């Protein structure tokens, strides 16, 4: 619409065309009745029914939450693990726009899109968990700011980061709609939004760990440390990149025909590069873990059941994938990269669930085990996200080439700069 400001007489017809275009884009592309679609539709429909029950009958009707365990998997997995998985966006934008590693430019858009959707859906899942979700505007509009609260910090950083990610992705939307001038403006804002986005990300990834600082007497000493925020931040780097590797491999297969020739050519190189970074950050993480372990003198806990469980997490889900990542990068073994990314993601989920649920009140008689309905709703949310992701990738220039006019615009901008 805005590109049309100069010739106003055409406005209404232009708007009609735009509306028609949107309508035509709404329609699904490709086959509708694939096995994946059928299963997804069923899970999502069932999830919808259960969500209705949750709001109609209260949290107790679908969850196993209790007075002892106020947070279940909707927080421990959907939000706290989900956000760590979504950390890829800030790491990749850091590589491309701050360190100027052009190699990763081809995956920026899809990574940012993944991150944005993950935040929208997984942080959005928090709405299901809130007792009074309609009061969620209270900390936003300013009638009651809990400035001393880590949760306040996390909530605001979520909100601002989602805005930053949306702006980072918005040039793709402008290209899809053919809004040339808008695209130019949005594209010009990229570096600023990236810098703001990285800062916000580091702080809210750490902030999610900070939520547990006051639960000192409730979390097993092997998992509790005053460095939880730093551990959460460092682990979000390789968690996010592992997700980029996994999602990249899947979209590479599913959307192969859409890929730019460049992405087809450099896909393996990108995965191997990310693998090296993952291995490196995991080493830093392991070092920090060892430091807190030695510093707090936790040796005597190791020979308890919880201590063994701790060792499982560290040995099989940190040390092992760390070695696999470095070996994979060294011998250029892409399959090994994928395998270690899966192992890493499982390890991150395990770590976050340990802190929020398993090692939380580890000595309590009553334990929290999620109901099938909590798991079902979580799956439904993930599937809706995947469907939306597919819808966008099929329409906007995410993996594929931007329209021709974008290249002209960029060339013109470059000439102006020189």
């Amino acid at each position, binding site marked *: 619409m805005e590109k049309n400001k100069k010739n106003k007489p055409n406005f209404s017809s232009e708007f009609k065309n735009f509306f028609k275009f949107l309508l035509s884009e709404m329609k699904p592309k490709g086959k509708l009745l694939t096995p994946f679609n059928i299963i997804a539709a069923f899970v999502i429909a069932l999830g919808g029914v259960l969500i209705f029950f949750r709001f109609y009958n209260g949290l107790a009707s679908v969850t196993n939450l209790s007075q002892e365990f*106020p947070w279940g998997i909707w927080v421990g997995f959907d939000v706290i693990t989900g956000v760590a998985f979504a950390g890829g966006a800030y790491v990749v934008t850091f590589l491309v726009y701050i360190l100027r590693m052009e190699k990763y430019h081809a995956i920026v858009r899809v990574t940012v899109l993944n991150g944005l959707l993950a935040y929208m859906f997984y942080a959005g899942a928090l709405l299901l968990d809130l007792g009074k979700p309609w009061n969620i505007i209270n900390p936003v509009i300013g009638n009651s700011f809990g400035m001393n609260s880590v949760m*306040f910090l996390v909530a605001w950083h979520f909100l601002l980061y989602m805005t930053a990610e949306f702006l980072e992705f918005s040039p793709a939307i402008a290209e899809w709609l053919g809004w040339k001038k808008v695209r130019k403006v949005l594209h010009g804002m990229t570096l600023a939004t990236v810098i703001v986005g990285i800062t916000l990300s580091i702080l809210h990834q*750490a902030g999610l760990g*900070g*939520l547990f600082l*006051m639960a000192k007497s409730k979390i097993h000493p092997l998992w509790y440390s005053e460095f939880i925020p730093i551990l959460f931040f460092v682990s979000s780097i390789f968690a996010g990149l592992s997700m980029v590797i996994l999602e990249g491999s899947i979209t590479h297969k599913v959307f192969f025909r859409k890929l730019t020739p460049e992405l087809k050519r450099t896909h393996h190189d990108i995965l191997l590069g990310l693998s090296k970074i993952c291995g490196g950050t995991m080493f830093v993480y392991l070092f920090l873990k060892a430091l807190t372990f030695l510093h707090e003198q936790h040796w005597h806990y190791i020979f308890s059941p919880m201590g063994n469980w701790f060792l499982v997490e560290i040995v099989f889900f940190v040390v092992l994938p760390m070695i696999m990542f470095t070996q994979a990068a060294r011998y250029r073994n892409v399959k090994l990269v994928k395998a270690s990314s899966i192992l890493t993601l499982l390890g991150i989920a395990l770590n976050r669930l340990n802190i929020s649920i398993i090692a939380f009140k580890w000595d309590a008689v009553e334990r929290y085990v999620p109901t099938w309905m909590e798991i079902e709703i979580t799956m439904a949310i993930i599937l809706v996200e995947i469907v939306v992701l597919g819808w966008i990738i099929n329409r906007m220039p995410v993996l594929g080439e931007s329209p021709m006019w974008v290249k002209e615009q960029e060339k013109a901008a470059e000439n102006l700069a020189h």
Partner: protein
Amino acid sequence: MDRRNFMKAVGLMGLATMPGKKTKAGQSVSDKEFNAILIDTTLCEGCEACLDACSESNKLPEAVTDPVAGIENKTSPNQLAVVNMYNVEDLEVTVKKQCMHCNQPACASACLTNAMFKTEEGPVIWRADKCMGCRFCMLSCPYDIPKFEYEKVNPDIKKCNMCYDRIKDGDIPACAEACPAEAIVYGTRKDMLEEARRRIYQNPDDYVHHIFGEDEVGGASVLYLSAVPFEKLGFKTKLGNEAMPKLTTDFLYSVPVIETLLPPFLLAISFAAKKSKEAGEGK
């Protein structure tokens, strides 16, 4: 600058900093104005008159739990206080338990909407119109006091509010009023600490020489006296004396520092990387 202007400036500066100080007062260690409840377990007979008064005052169903040794009753959305019984040596001790009304409450510092709030009078209260129901207060409270109405469509957080409405009307909390044995007394925190010490000094053999709640996690507005060590009465005695919000202050202080220092740093790296890349291409 002459003296008058100087005084004006000082006055203005004082005014400017006042609101900040005032909002902090609610969370501060200062206990000058805080009121408190003193519970003397050596005088408690386990009659549960306090629980009946509590239920009535808070319009809740009648308390159903009876103190039985070996069973640890816990507060619930329908019962904001409990009386537990402990067999220690040859003594049968009954203890009323409820919210401790900490001086620097974990729940209030956890709350992102200030729904959980430490009042100037001492009680920690909860306000329905602000609460989002995130239950971060429950996660943070070292005593596991806030309780949530999972069964309800519009659930509330339930906990003792020291009969805040009665206090504001000049009354004393219902439990203190109902206690026939002077095991629950109410007054300013200073006076209650003095009263507790007086009881210990006058009968040094009847009490352990410790007031639970005086220093625990930064001090509380509920104080306990006991004849036996507190850990034998189900009290959490290993929490330390540091106020709970202290656990998050280091992290929270680092936030504005990172927020101001990191962006220019990132910008600098970005430009340096661009320059070196262009130089590399130039060759």
